């Protein structure tokens, strides 16, 4: 009898110079049952992955503006058209900033109102569970994740904010009010097609109660592994 090995989904994790949470994102993908594939900023090659995570960190030192220099990395020349063609992409923290700079997501991330870097466990409410990255969550589910950023306040013009609201593209909001001045308490958004998601707090740091505030973040990484999500 033929044994069928289930194909595990390959999730690429991009390392830019200055990426920091890339190992954490890999760990989360593996913990969820996927296969993490390292992607190098300097290679114009997505190595046949089924989804991509842009991890947290300070790409290029976050000099100039967070994510501004990373946006022009060779790997982004492959990623941008692939994302526009439907490849699921999750940008976490610095990755969110890169996605905004690359215009794969509307708006921008700006300096925290308190002007300081803030590392805090925060509760976020999943507002949209129709993206590939959030399909495992119940609508309105509240999870605790780690926020750690200095430039984490989401900003966009009124029209964009209204559009995000009416199209249901806000993926997550801070459940206890914004800790950083984010417009509409926005913690994460999706692009119009729903495959590209940006999230300011870190679900990859909430996959194990030993090293984080619980396991609430794990479903970001397991959701994408369901066939429907990656289709």
């Amino acid at each position, binding site marked *: 009898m033929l044994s069928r090995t289930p194909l595990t989904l390959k999730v690429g994790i991009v390392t830019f110079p200055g990426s920091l949470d890339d190992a954490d994102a890999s760990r989360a993908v593996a913990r969820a049952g996927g296969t993490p594939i390292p992607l190098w900023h300097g290679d114009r090659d997505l190595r046949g992955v089924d989804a991509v995570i842009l991890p947290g960190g300070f790409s290029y030192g976050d000099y*100039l*503006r967070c994510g*501004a*220099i990373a946006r*022009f990395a060779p790997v982004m020349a492959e990623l941008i058209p692939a994302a526009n063609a439907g490849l699921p992409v999750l940008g976490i923290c610095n990755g969110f900033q890169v996605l*905004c*700079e690359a215009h794969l997501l*509307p*708006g*921008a991330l*700006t*300096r*925290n*109102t*308190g*002007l300081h870097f803030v590392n805090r466990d925060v509760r976020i409410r999943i507002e949209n569970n129709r993206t590939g990255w959030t399909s495992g969550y119940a609508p309105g589910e509240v999870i605790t994740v780690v926020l750690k950023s200095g430039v984490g*306040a989401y*900003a*966009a*013009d009124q029209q964009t904010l209204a559009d995000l609201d009416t199209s249901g593209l806000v993926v997550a909001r801070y459940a206890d009010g914004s800790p950083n*001045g984010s417009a509409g308490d926005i913690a994460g958004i999706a692009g119009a097609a729903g495959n590209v998601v940006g999230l300011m707090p870190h679900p990859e740091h909430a996959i194990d109660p030993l090293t984080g505030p619980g396991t609430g973040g794990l479903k970001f990484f397991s959701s994408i592994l369901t066939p429907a999500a990656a289709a």
Partner: protein
Amino acid sequence: MAGQVPPSRTLRDVAKIVVDVMLKPEIHDPQGEAIAGACHRLGFTEVVAVRQGKRFEVEIGEPGEAGPMTIRVAELAAELLANPIIEEFAIHGP
């Protein structure tokens, strides 16, 4: 990293162009507000408002006439130095 060691400065054909980048007026500027608050605490009560932006001094080699260079810097500012979603820029010089 490329560009850390400037090429010899004996060539005199290097111009300095300034690019000022400010947050758009409608974008919240917590840094500026904090500075205005600090001004008041320091006794500079006549300060009404402060906005903080960036200033880039770009030393650039002249490829041809002045025209193209200014255009190049404008391209650079629009593409890299400023984020048009939240910022606006102005170019001065050389």
